[in-house]
Structure formats: C-alpha cells, structure tokens
C-alpha cells in the first residue's frame, strides 16, 4: 500500500513541477537558449509522444468503463491518469525544446504546440476534477482531452510528413496534365503541378522555408535566402537542380527526407525544362521533338492517346466461332474487349460473311478487307459497326458509291481506299467524313482538283495521296526468252515474256540489235527450224527501251562417227572430251561449269570422220566470250574437208571480229556454209588470240578459246 502511495505522491509532485516549467517555457520561450544536451532531449519528442497517447486512451477507457476490471479500479485509474500526465508533461517539454530548432513551418507548429499544451492542461484539470469527485467536469475534460490528442497527433504528423500526408492516397492524384498535348504549356501544365505537389507545402506565403516561395513565377524568379533557385544564365548551376539531385541522406537534399519525394520522371522533367532555359510561357509542342524535355513531357500524354474501350467483352465462344483460316478475329491485346478482324484469301472471300460479324458489332474496331472483292452494296454491312475506328478497303474493287454506309460510323478515324477507282459519289460522301483523322486515296483515279477540294473540305484529316509519277523515265528490263531447250531437233517454239503487260517486245533473228529501224514485233510464240541467234528488247511508252537479251538456239545435226582431238584441251577444262561437243547439252555462261572445253596453249584442232560420205551444208561452233577471264573469240578459224578421193582441202578461213573492250559475257555462234557433197571427214582448227591486245588487262598474254558444241548439218 505504501509503495502505491509513494508513486502517487511522486507523480502528483511531478505534475505540479511540470505545470510550472511548461508555463515558464511558453511565456519565456524566446529568452531561453538551450544547451546541446537539452536539444537531444528535445529530439526525443517523436519517441516520447507515443506514451501519453496510449496511456491517455487507456485511462479514458477505464474512466468511462470502470467495470472492465472485476474489482475496484479506482487506484489503477489514478496511477494511469497520473502516469499519462507525467509522460504528457515530458513530451510537451521535449516538444517545446524541439520547436526552438529551426526548420519548422510556424503556422503548423503553433497549432500543434497549443493543442499539445491544451492536452496537458486539460488533462491536469481532468485529474483534479476526478480526484475531487466533480464527475461532470471530469467527464467533460476526459472527452476534450481525447479529442485533442487526435487533433494534436494529426497536426504533428502533417508537420513531419507534409500536409495531407494522411489523406494523400485517397485524394486525387492528378499526374497526367488535364489538357491535350497541343495545348499544354511547359510551366503551367507540367512544371507547376510538380512544384505544387512536392515543394509548395513548405515554400508558400504561409510557410516560407529558406525565405523561398515556389507558388508563383515571380517568387520563383526572386529566389530565396541562398539566392537564385533557377540560374537563367547558367541553367546547369541552378540551386534547385543541385538540391534535388543530391543523395537523400544529404541535409541539403530537397524535398527533405521524410517528405514526399520527387519521382524519377518528375526530376527528369524539372531538369530538362531548366536546362532548356526554364521557359515559362513556351508550349510543349513548340519544343523540338528531339529535345529531352519534349520527350519526357510527351510521355505524360501517352495515356490520353491510348483509347479506352469500355464496352463489354464478346464471349470467347462467339470469337472462336467467327475465326477460321480466312478470317482472323482477335483482341487488340489480351485485356482489351476491342476486336480486330482481318480477311485473307481473295478466292475464298464471300462478302455475305460480313453479316456474321454483327455478333461482334460493338467490339469491332479494326476491319481489314484489303484485296477482297467487294461490291459497293456490300458496304451496307459495315453500318452496324458503330465503334469501328480503322477500316481498310484497299484494292477491293469498289467505286465508293457505297461509302454512304460509312458516313454514320462516327468513331471512324482511319479509312484506306487505295487502289479503287473512286466515283464522284464517293468523293461527295468522303467530304462529309469530317471526323476522319487519316484518309488514304493513293491510286484512286482522283484528279488533283478533286483532291484539293477534298483537302479543303476536310481540313483536320491527314490525306495521303502517296507516290505520284514525277515523269522520270526509267529503263525497262529486258524480256524473258522461254524455250524448251537450247538444242532442238526438227523445229521448236519460242516464247517471249515481259512482266509489264503494256510493253512491246521487238526481236531479230539475224544477229543484229533490235531497234526502231530493224525488228520484228513479237505477237505470239513463233517457231524456228534452224540455228539462230535471237536478240530481243522491250519498249513501252513512258519508259526507255530495255537492254537486249539474247540466246542461241541450235538445231542438232549429223553426229560424226569418229572424233579425235589433234591437240588436247587444257587439263583444267577437259569436260567430257570430244563427247561434250556432240552431247546436245548447251553450256551456260559459267565457263567452269564443266560443259565447256577450254584451249589456250594449243589451238582447238579436231578431226571428225564419217563412215559413209555425207552432204554437209554448214558447220557451226558454239563459243563463249568472258572478256574478264581472257576468254575471247578465236583469232582464226580454219576448216578442211576430205572428199571421196581422200585429199584434204582448206575450204574456210575466217578471222572472227575481235572485241575492243570487255563486253557482256555471251554465248555466240560461228556458222559457216560449206555446201559440199561426198564428205568423208572434216578437220577444224580454232586458234586462240595470242597475244591479247593492248586494251585488255591481260595484254601480251595468251587468250582462251571455249567451245561446248559443234553442229554439222
């Protein structure tokens, strides 16, 4: 019992002492200078304050509901009340010491201080009233004290954590600017909201920490007690930039530790805006697109660009049911109710299938019908799709008279009509589509005047007219020569082809270049029945004539019974020996392909014998020219024939025309009429050029002769 008494009397005495001390501090605050150890005590305020809160609440509980405990609770209540007042006193004194330090906002601090003092004083009255049995006063005081504890606590929290700390999560968090990108002004819509959220609570009229206000442009420019916040001469030296980029542990760091911090984006925005000269009036879109500030600012508007679809999802079953190989129905992305439909496979397309899309008429926002065959009346199916945003009708064959059905699609933003020959009706319907953002009308047959009219009727629409032929003349590419084989028996059909339908194909069969004065116009496949060199070119209006394409066709003839080389071919290009020359296989332009015989050190000299004498009309050699590889026409071609009598006579000597530069690689034919009866053998000698002429890179060296076929008729 005595122990209890001792504690009570100690606490009651403390109460009197604290009351006196506190009164003295409050009155004489500005005259007191604190020794450092008391500053330490002051800084214990945030620690101590938890005791009175808990104890006062407990005391209140026991005061109002004494029956919580089974037996008499009076002595416990007394101790509780005194203890809570003891800690309240300690907390208040610590708080008073702490408030003497700089750095707190006076207005908030005053409120917190006085409510705190009231808690202590009214608490003291509560104890006295209770002790003296004045129950009404005691009850009033108890309620007042408990309410005041709440208020004081909240004010204190605001003081350390910043205003609205408590309600911040539910109060509106406006981070995206409220205006569109086009209207946004750099300071008003981007920078000021950041300052307001993160800086102004301490730098405003009522609370000018560091003598700085950031709530209005003129105060920002005026700076604070440390001078300019933003240095317009050397933006990179601006104090605000240095402060916000310091590590958070640094005392100079802003916003101070414990206050809401700037996000990374906010720092980047502030930094780039200041580095780009802190232009208060400039609009965001007036910054160059490459400017970092623009880049960051632009991202704030991203959310606005992203369309939000709030309609219901189509059922999975419906979507699956509509999907097949030639029609793909899918969500724009997994969590989106919006659907995109694409048709593929022209041959399988049936316009009536558009009717099936009614099941998703709400969800359909993107419809791709390009290259499908449509009639204009088919466009009536589209009028159901009220949320359609993107419509692709490229190359569908419509003339646009059905575009009236598109008029009521108010959400439509992009319409592609390229490759359709649009009628006048179409243009009239298009003029009414003022809500369109983009219209694609390349290759629609509209003349410049109509397009200009459209553009003036639809000033907000981006009208893409695409490539227009600027009159530059291009060269056609050569026709293709199609024939079954290069060496034929009897006769053979030859086709000439060109991928552009409007060209005329000219050709010659006499080894001359086809030109305006000398040509045959190709009108269809033609037949050949003898050795020919076909040369062909393509011509068309608006193009320059093509290079030539040529081919050699050989009629197979008499095969000699015995063939012998009198001089052997180069060992690298032996092919199949003499058999190569009569295998009816033409070599291509690749000399190393193995179907060509090559001669350099020796001339190509060959003897062809017949078991029975023959009548020979002509003899032809299929040769190759690859100038860069020293393969050129032979210097000299000599032919001897042996008659029935066994004597050999020279019947032909020719010096083929030599090139004067490196020409295009070609396979060419050297053909000689002989017209001899009763021939039993023929000898031919093709001598390589030696030396190569001066213009040739290999001047002075020996040339090559390449041969792949000999044809005797």
């Amino acid at each position: 019992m005595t122990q209890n008494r001792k504690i009570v009397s100690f606490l009651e005495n403390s109460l009197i002492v604290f009351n006196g001390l506190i009164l003295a501090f409050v009155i004489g605050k500005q005259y007191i200078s604190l020794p450092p150890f008391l500053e330490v005590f002051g800084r214990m305020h945030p620690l101590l304050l938890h005791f009175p809160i808990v104890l006062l609440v407990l005391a209140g509980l026991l005061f109002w509901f004494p029956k919580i405990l089974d037996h008499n609770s009076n002595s416990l209540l007394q101790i509780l009340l005194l203890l809570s007042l003891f800690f309240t006193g300690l907390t208040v004194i610590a708080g008073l010491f702490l408030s003497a330090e700089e750095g707190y906002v006076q207005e908030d601090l005053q409120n917190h201080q006085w409510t705190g003092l009231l808690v202590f004083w009214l608490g003291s009255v509560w104890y006295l009233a209770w002790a003296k049995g004045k129950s009404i006063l005691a009850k009033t005081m108890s309620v007042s004290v408990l309410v005041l504890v709440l208020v004081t606590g909240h004010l204190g929290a605001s003081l350390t954590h910043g205003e609205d700390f408590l309600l911040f999560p539910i109060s509106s968090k406006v981070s995206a600017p409220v205006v569109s990108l086009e209207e946004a002004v750099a300071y008003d819509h981007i920078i000021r909201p950041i300052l307001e959220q993160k800086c102004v609570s301490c730098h405003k009229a009522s609370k000018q920490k560091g003598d700085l206000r950031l709530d209005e442009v003129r105060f920002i420019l005026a700076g604070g007690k440390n001078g300019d916040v933003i240095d317009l001469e050397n933006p990179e030296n601006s104090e605000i930039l240095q402060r916000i980029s310091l590590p958070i542990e640094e005392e100079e760091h802003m916003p101070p530790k414990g206050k809401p911090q700037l996000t990374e984006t906010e720092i980047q925005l502030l930094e780039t805006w200041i580095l780009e000269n802190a232009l208060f009036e400039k609009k965001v879109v007036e910054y160059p697109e490459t400017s970092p500030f623009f880049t960051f600012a632009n991202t704030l508007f991203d959310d606005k660009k992203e369309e939000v679809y709030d309609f219901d999802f189509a059922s999975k079953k419906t979507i699956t049911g509509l999907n097949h190989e030639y029609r793909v129905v899918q969500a724009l992305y997994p969590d989106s109710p919006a659907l995109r439909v694409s048709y593929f496979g022209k041959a399988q397309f049936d316009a009536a299938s558009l009717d099936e899309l009614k099941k998703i008429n709400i969800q359909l926002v993107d419809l791709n019908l390009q290259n499908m065959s449509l009639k204009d009346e088919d466009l009536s199916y589209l009028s159901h799709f009220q949320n359609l945003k993107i419509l692709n009708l490229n190359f569908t064959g419509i003339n646009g008279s059905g575009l009236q059905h598109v008029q009521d699609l108010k959400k439509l933003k992009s319409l592609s009509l390229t490759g359709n020959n649009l009628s006048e009706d179409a243009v009239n319907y298009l003029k009414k589509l003022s809500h369109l953002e983009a219209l694609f009308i390349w290759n629609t047959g509209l003349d410049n005047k109509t397009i200009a009219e459209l553009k003036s009727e639809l000033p907000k629409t981006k009208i893409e007219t695409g490539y227009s032929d600027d009159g530059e003349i291009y060269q056609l590419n050569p026709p293709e020569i199609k024939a079954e084989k290069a060496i034929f028996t009897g006769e053979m059909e030859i086709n000439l082809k060109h991928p552009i339908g409007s060209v005329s194909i000219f050709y010659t069969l006499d080894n001359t270049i086809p030109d305006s004065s000398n040509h045959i116009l190709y009108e269809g496949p033609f037949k050949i029945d003898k050795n020919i060199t076909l040369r062909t070119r393509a011509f068309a209006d608006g193009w320059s004539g093509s290079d030539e394409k040529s081919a050699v066709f050989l009629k197979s003839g008499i095969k000699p019974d015995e063939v012998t080389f009198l001089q052997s071919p180069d060992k690298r290009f032996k092919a199949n020996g003499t058999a190569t020359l009569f295998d009816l296989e033409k070599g291509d332009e690749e000399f190393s392909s193995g179907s060509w015989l090559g001669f350099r050190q020796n001339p190509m000299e060959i003897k062809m014998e017949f078991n029975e004498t023959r009548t020979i009309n002509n003899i032809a050699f299929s040769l190759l020219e690859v100038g860069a590889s020293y393969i050129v026409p032979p210097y000299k071609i000599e032919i001897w024939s042996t008659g029935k009598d066994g004597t050999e006579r020279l019947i032909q000597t020719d010096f083929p025309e030599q090139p004067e530069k490196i020409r295009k690689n070609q396979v060419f034919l050297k053909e000689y009429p002989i017209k001899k009866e009763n021939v039993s053998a023929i000898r031919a000698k093709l001598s390589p050029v030696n030396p190569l002429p001066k213009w040739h890179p290999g001047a002075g060296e020996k040339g090559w002769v390449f041969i792949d076929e000999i044809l005797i008729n």
Partner: protein
Amino acid sequence: MEKEQLEHGLNQNRRKFLSKVSLGIGSLALGSLLIPDLFKGKGGEDALMAALPHFAPKAKRIIYLFQNGAPSQLESFDYKPMLNQQMGQELPESIRMGQRLTGMTAGQSSFPLVGSYYGFMQYGEHRAWISDIFPHTAKVVDDICIIKSMHTEAINHDPALTFFQTGAQVGNRPSMGAWLSYGLGSENNNLPSFCVLLSRGKGNGQGVYSKLWTNGFLDSVHQGVQFSASEDPVLYLSDPKGMNREDRRRMLDHLSSLNEVNYQEFGDPEIQAKIQQYEMAFRMQTAVPEVTDISKEPDSIIKMYGPDCLVPGTYAANCLLARKLSESGVRFVQLYHQGWDQHGNLPREMINQANDVDQASAALITDLKQRGLLDETLVIWGGEFGRTNYCQGKIQLDNYGRDHHPRAFSIWMAGGGVKSGMVYGETDEFGYNIVENPVHIHDFQATVLHLMGIDHERLTFKHLGRRYRLTDVHGKVVNDILV
C-alpha cells in the same frame, strides 16, 4: 510385349503419364490462379500465347532489310567532315583506346584516317545528314528514325549476324522472327509467319545461311521459310504435273482420315499437328501464288521500286514481295542483301550496293505509307556492325577500304510506333566512339519486341533447364525513339 499392349490399350505410357502428372499437379494450383484459361485449352504454350501480346502493340508486323556484310556508316548516315580534314593522319590512340582489331588490320603498322569519298547533304525537317549515294532514302528522311549509336560486341560477320538475329554470338538460339512467330503466331494462317528473302549485290559478299533464320530450340513451325527466286518460290509446294487440285484434296482427305484413325488409337498430339500442317500447305498452294504474283501491280509501283523489282531475286523484287507478304499478314519478313563488306575498293563498290537498295528501300516506306500500313508495320534497315574510320590497306584519294568496327554504327527504323524524322545518338567527331545515347544490340531487340507488344523479359522458353529469351539477361527498351 504385354506391357506395350497394356500401354496401347490405355492410350498411355510411362513417359507420357509422368510428364502429364508432373505438369498437371505442379501447375494446378498456381496456374489456375494466374492463367484462368489454363484448363480450358491445351495449356503450356497455348496458355502463353493467350497472354500475348503483353500490352497493346504499336506494330503488327516487321520487315527487316538486313544489309549483310556491314555497310559503312561513314559513307551513309554518320557524317564526319573531320575525317576528310585529317585524311591520312594517324588515328589518335586516345580515340582508339586499344580496342581489339580483326586479324585483317591488326598487323597494320599505321591507321590513317579516311573521310567519305561521297558528299553529304542535309535533308528533312530535322536536317539529317545523308550521303549522296542514298538519294531516295533522303527523300523519305522525315519518315524514318536514324540511330547513329548502335554498338555490338562481335567483330566478325558470323558472330555479329548471329548476335543480331538470335541474341547470342554463338550457338543455335532462335532467330528474332522465330521468337515473334512463337510469341504472336501468324496473322494469316495460310502463310508462314516468318519468311526469308535473299538477294546478292555486286560488292564483296559474305554468306548467309539458314542458321540465321533457325527456330533454335523452339518448335520447327517457327523456322523462317525461305522464298526462292525461281518459279517455285516455296520449294515442293506445287503439285506435280498432272495432279489437279481436286485430286490433291481427295488425297489429303483420305490421308487425314487415316491419320485420324491413328490418332484415336495412340492419342499422339504430333499426329494432329501433322494433319494441320498438310492442310496449311494445301492452303498455301493458293495463297503463295496470290502473294507472289506481281503482274497486277500498277505501273507506278514498278517505277517506284525501280524496274529491277520485276527481276526475281533482286533486292527490289524482294522489297516488293516483302510488302505483299507483310500486307497479307506475314508477321516477320526478313530480307538479306549481300555484298556490303568493303575491306577495299570502297568508293567503287559501295555506290553499286547503294544503287541496289536505295530506291527500293525508300519505295517500301512510301508504299506502306500510302496504303495506310506504315503505322502498323515496323521497317528496319541496317547491317551487323560498322566500319573503321581508318583505312584498311593502302590509302589513296579515290580508293580505300574499311575494316569491321563494332563500337559505333548506324541503322534506321521506320513506322510501327517509332518516331519519324528523328536522328538518335551521336558519335565523336572521329566517328569512332559513341558519345550520346548508345543502343546495344539487346536494347534494339528489346525495343523491337516492345513495339510488337511484348515485354522482352517475359517472352521465354525453357530449354536445357533454364529459361531463355532473345535478350538473354540484358536489354533496355529505347523509350526515346518511341512515339
């Protein structure tokens, strides 16, 4: 034998049972929470597909114009007048900083700086510098985003190409197109989702090989399908002579009923896959000729791409075909144009290479734009690394060469959510090191996936006990170039 009969009767064997059970129980609890549809479909890959793309994509399709052999950035998009001023002077060590060189120039005793043989001019709203040998690209400069600060680790063609395409310098990882096919599937089920087109320039070339369009460890349906320049663009697709389409249909119907019987008996999902692949090939028989037929293209298209586009197998023809494939829903069209490896003779060779590709590349941009497709198609142009600012071999006023340079090179991108008319990144005045906004290969890959609506960290495939992704453990989306 008894055991086999039992398994057969139960339509089950030990391996299948175990794999089903382990997969089933393990993923039951978690999987049903995370992926509500897990038990509605087949699970596994299907569930992954259902969750893709991860967010709204900017681009639906990609056309990648790969300039194989590494075109010189110093003669195309990275204008360095300083190199002309200091022509023939030694590359300062303070710039080179001991960087490794290829075996081709490591032995060189001197590294004389060499400036561009071709002139440069500024074009477009942002006054981007473009060399005189790319006049058509210059005309569309306001539609493209030039990145001058690409860098890679590889210094030789094969590893660099493989790195660009698969995210690793060695090994057999899936190519970017295969990853996208795996992640997003095909838009048009009648065509492959990943197509490859090859062309060859006149310049010094480097080979390309099917490793670059491999499916790696992914299912083989994701492999790139090479279209050839012949009359049969897709090999073995046409029916043999004398077989008509009805016969083929009947044959496939019978084959599939036989396969169905087999499936009922064994329950192997591979059988179903086979049936579907036959069906797809059958549909491709009509879809492919429809796409590859250029006879209905208007004359103005031919003039735009240049008459070469009518010659199958040229770069221009491939660009036109790429547009047609892409517009028909092919997810990823990969072109390779060979011949950009100018170790020597650069002034003569590079202009030919540029002539091959310039007009058609620009035409592709214009063509997509005029059809309203550029916004949803991402076009990429570039090689596997850059070329040195010093001369390889003997330096002459009108003839020089450049070696491989991985530290800085230029590419361009257009459409599909990329900012237009932008020049991004900067190199030092020697064109040797990047001084601003470097973009690593993995950053590039992450950005490409991002544009397609894919979080590059979440598109993974488990193989040999660990999850792989295109960007390995790297990659940061280059937000600055996104619209």
